[in-house]
């Protein structure tokens, strides 16, 4: 289709991404690790490891168990704390020139506020992503996402403090996903990230014990992709104006296109980055080829393209 001027760039709540493929939280390192293996400048953006106000050593090992088409991990948010991030990692990441989003976590409202305050106004930060899957010490240790009002409190506080767009990261397996998404947006979030790792456990049957030090961890990788696509689809149908980043098991361009067709504005690549450091670049190239083949100009054009009820091809039609 000659004549269509193609661009991979995406505007995500005011953040301009050169490519719709970002590195997901906890999977892209600090800008040092992939040197020589992948060019971070070719990423659409990067979401950092989840940062907490105080440093955390995380869970004891083992921290990873491989399962069918996925991995169960329990790292426990090991990080050097938000201050160390601002002093050491952020300048290095900012030099890449790509949008950097800081993932913010906490165990209480106060924890989120403290972390967000330190990040406030930091140059080199394009946005924040709020991790909501951790235990809330003010709510019997239940995850923040288990109560919409609680999520809204956190998102509201972080959004008021932040000078850059804020994305709420939601898990797939809550029955009121759409109300939760709506609640986060009403509270001040500029966009959403869907989904977080799915709670999961692996058991060592030979030694009769859990395979992770954390006992229960989170499943990621291709195994969770259909779950993530469904979550993106449900939210995008209900809130078509809200920028959504889709994440969960994306390893190929085709996987990413699934998310874009389901309604995502951009995608994040996590587990695949650990396996194939150049996965995001390859996926971005593949998306460009797909768009070209379909005669579309930009990734955003895919959002309205999925055929739903009433537009199915006639039965028996050839697949040409």
């Amino acid at each position, binding site marked *: 289709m000659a004549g269509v001027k193609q661009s991979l760039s995406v505007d995500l709540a005011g953040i301009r991404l050169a490519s719709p493929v970002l590195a997901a939280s906890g999977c892209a390192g600090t800008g040092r690790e992939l040197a020589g293996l992948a060019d971070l400048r070719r990423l659409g953006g990067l979401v950092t490891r989840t940062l907490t106000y105080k440093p955390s050593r*995380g869970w004891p090992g083992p921290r990873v168990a491989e399962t069918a088409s*996925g991995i169960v991990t329990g790292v426990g948010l090991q990080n050097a704390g938000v201050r160390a991030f601002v002093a050491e990692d952020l300048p290095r990441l900012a030099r890449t020139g790509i949008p950097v989003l800081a993932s913010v976590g906490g165990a209480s409202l106060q924890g989120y506020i403290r972390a967000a305050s330190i990040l406030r106004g930091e140059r080199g930060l394009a946005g924040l992503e709020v991790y909501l899957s951790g235990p809330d010490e003010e709510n019997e240790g239940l995850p923040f996402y288990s109560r919409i009002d609680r999520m809204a409190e956190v998102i509201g506080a972080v959004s008021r403090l932040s000078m850059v767009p804020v994305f709420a990261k939601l898990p797939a397996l809550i029955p009121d996903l759409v109300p939760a998404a709506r609640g986060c947006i009403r509270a001040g979030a500029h966009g959403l990230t869907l989904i977080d790792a799915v709670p999961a456990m692996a058991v060592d049957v030979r030694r009769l014990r859990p395979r992770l030090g954390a006992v229960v961890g989170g499943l990621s990788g291709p195994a969770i992709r259909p779950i993530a696509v469904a979550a993106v689809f449900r939210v995008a149908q209900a809130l078509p104006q809200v920028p959504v980043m889709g994440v969960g098991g994306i390893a190929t361009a085709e996987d990413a296109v699934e998310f874009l067709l389901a309604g995502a504005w951009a995608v994040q690549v996590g587990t695949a980055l650990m396996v194939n450091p150049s996965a995001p670049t390859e996926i971005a190239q593949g998306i460009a080829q797909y768009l070209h083949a379909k005669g579309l100009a930009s990734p955003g054009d895919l959002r309205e393209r999925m055929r739903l009820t009433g537009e199915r091809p006639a039965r028996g039609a050839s697949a040409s």
Partner: protein
Amino acid sequence: MRRVRAEILNSRKLGAFQSITLVAPEIADRARPGQFVSVAMPDDRRFILRRHFSIHQASRRGGWAGTLEFVFDPQGPGAEWLAEAKAHQFLDVIGPLGRAFAYPRAPSNCLLVSEGYGASSIFFLAQELRARGKRVDMVLGASEESHLFKPIEAKRLSQTIVIVTADGSSGEHGSVMDVVPRAAQGAGTEVIYAAGPRPMLRTVAEFCIEQRIPAQVAVEEEMACGTGLCFTCVVPVIRKDGSGYDNLRSCTEGPVFNPARVFWDRWTSEETRAIPTPPEGFPRVVSSWPA
């Protein structure tokens, strides 16, 4: 570190292990003992993680220049697939990864202690030490004879060698630590290098600390990415100033560590419990945990 498509030169059985030699000059030229390579699994997504193997041999010169050998236990998903790989097949390999063993500056007598698969990196180390004029002695341990790593080759590489198996099927009957003190004394050992499973490393480390022998140990931790991204392969290491410990990644800050700084009590007591100790900063009583 480089990522290359490397051709398999040959794949052969080595007792209970499998050995693969690759043509990978970009990696072989830079590889040092203690470092490892990361090998991608097939694209069918059944198991997705790369597999990590310490470098057994890297040739920079001679007829085998540019080749790299690693050895593995052909058990379990991934390893079984790799053991079936044939010559001329290509593998997606990243390496060399991790921190290598450091060599002593002054001429020294080095005792190289290993158990089972751990011997893999020790042979490469022995060659490099000898090339630097060091005396090399070895203690080679295994559960049984079939898991003993190239004993003939080991004899060729070392001044003296003690072989020990848990079932007595080859060499002495017992554990590595039963023979290390005697071997160290006989050889006038000044530096100890060790590689193998956690409990064995701990006993060697305790001996080194007690005898004030400088030592380095290479750990065998399960890794997900091998490149430092995921923080799954951590080892608790006491800070230099003694103010506490940090969980360091064995893929990037290791796999070679100073055993005097490994927090052994914590590391070897990491049995999983029904109610695990929560990470700092999180409430004590919870029904869910951050993954």
